[in-house]
C-alpha cells in the first residue's frame, strides 16, 4: 500500500520535472522566429556562398527578418542559388533594388545574409498608388519584392584566399 506521503513526494517529483522541462523549453532553447508562421520566398544567385547554411538568418541592419531555406546549384550555369523565406510581416516593404550580401557576425562567427533596402523611384510611387500594381496579381510591375522574385543585386562571401591573393598582387604592382 502506498501512503499519502509517498504520493505527495512522487507528485512533487513530477512537478519538479515539469518545471525543469518548461525552463529548458522556454528560457534555454531556441524561441526564434520559427513560430512566426507565414513567409514568402525570394531567390538570389551568388558566386560564392562561403559558409552560409540552411536556416541561416536574413537580417536588415541586425534585425532578423527571415531565414535561408534552400541552397542549391542552378542546373544550367552551375551557379549557387539561395532560396530565402522572409516573414510575411515584411511583405511589400523591400524595393526591387534591394541588395543582398553575405556577412559574418563577429570575426569567426556564423554567416548570415544582410539585406540592404534599396530605393523607389518617385514615378513608381505614383504607379503604386494610382494604378494599384501591388494589389492585384501578377505583381511583375510592382516595384517592391514579392513572392518568388529574384534579387539581382548580390555580393558574394569574402573568401580569405582571394583576399590574400588580391593583397599580394597589389603589393607586387608597387
Amino acid at each position, binding site marked *: *500500500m*502506498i501512503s499519502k506521503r*509517498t*504520493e505527495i*513526494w*512522487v507528485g*512533487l*517529483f*513530477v512537478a*519538479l*520535472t515539469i*518545471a*525543469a*522541462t518548461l*525552463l*529548458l*523549453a522556454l*528560457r*534555454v*532553447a*531556441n*524561441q*526564434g522566429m520559427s513560430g512566426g508562421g507565414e513567409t514568402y520566398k525570394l531567390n538570389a544567385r551568388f558566386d560564392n556562398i562561403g559558409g552560409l547554411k540552411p536556416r541561416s538568418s536574413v537580417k536588415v541592419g541586425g534585425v532578423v527578418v527571415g531565414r535561408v531555406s534552400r541552397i542549391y546549384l542552378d542546373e544550367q550555369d552551375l551557379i549557387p542559388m539561395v532560396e530565402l523565406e522572409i516573414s510575411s510581416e515584411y511583405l511589400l516593404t523591400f524595393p526591387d533594388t534591394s541588395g543582398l550580401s553575405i556577412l559574418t557576425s563577429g570575426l569567426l562567427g556564423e554567416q548570415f545574409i544582410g539585406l540592404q533596402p534599396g530605393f523607389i523611384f518617385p514615378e513608381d510611387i505614383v504607379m503604386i498608388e494610382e494604378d494599384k500594381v501591388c494589389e492585384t496579381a501578377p505583381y511583375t510591375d510592382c516595384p517592391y519584392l514579392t513572392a518568388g522574385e529574384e534579387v539581382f543585386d548580390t555580393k558574394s562571401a569574402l573568401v580569405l584566399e582571394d583576399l590574400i591573393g588580391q593583397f599580394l598582387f597589389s603589393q607586387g604592382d608597387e
Partner: protein
Amino acid sequence: MKFLQNLGKSTLETISSVGASSIMLYGALFALPTWKNVRLTIAQMHVVGVQSLLIIMVSGLFIGMVMALQGYTILVNYGAEGSLGPMVSLSLLRELGPVVTALLFAGRAGSALTAEIGLMKATEQLSSLEMMAVDPLRRVVSPRFWAGVISMPMLALIFSATGILGGHVVGVDWLGVDAGSYWSIMQATVEWDKDVVNGIIKSIVFGLVVVWIALYKGYSCIPTSEGISKATTETVVFSSLAILGLDFILTALMFGIS
C-alpha cells in the same frame, strides 16, 4: 588446453545470460497494466526517483558551477565570455546531463534494486510468490523496471536545469558575465529538437539499460550474501561501462557524420 576450455565456457555463459536477461525483460514488460500495478510503479518511483533527487540536484548544481568557472577562465582570453551560456547549457543538455545522471542513478538506484531483488531471491520470497500463483516478474520486477525508465529522463532534465541555473549563479552573479548575453546567446544556440530532445532520448536509453542490468543481476544472482555483494558490484560496473559505450554510439548517431 584449460585456457581454451575456460574461454569457451565463459563465452557460452555470457551468451546464455544475455538470453536469460532478455527472457526476464520480456516477462516483465508485457504485464497487462492493472490499477494495482500502477500503484506499485508509483511506489517504486518514490524509491528510485524521489530518493535520488538530492544527489542529482546537488551534483547538477556543482557541475554547472564548475563548468561556468572553468569555462570563464578560458573564454575571457578571447573576449568571448558572453558565450558562457551556450557552453554550459550545450555540454549539460547533450552530454553531461544524461551521462552523469545515469552514472549516479546506476550507483544509487541500480545497486539498491540489485540488492533488494537479490535479497528477495536469497530469502526465497520470489519462489514463495510463485507458489502463491503470483508472477514474481509482474509483481516485483515490472514495477521497478517502469519506475526506472520513467524516472531517468526526469532526473536528467532536473540535472540539466539545475546545472544551467548553477552556471548562471557563478557566471553572472560572481564572475560578472552579462545576464542578458548569458540567456540570449544561449537561446540563439540551443535548439529544442536537436539538443534537448536528443538529451531526453539518451537518458531514456540509459535508464532502460541501467534498470535492465540491475534487475537481471538481482534476479539471477547466487542466493548467498557473497552472491548479492558480487551482483551489486557487477551492476554498477557493467551499467557504467554500458552507459559510456552507448553514449559514444548515440552521440555518433545524433551529432556525428550525417
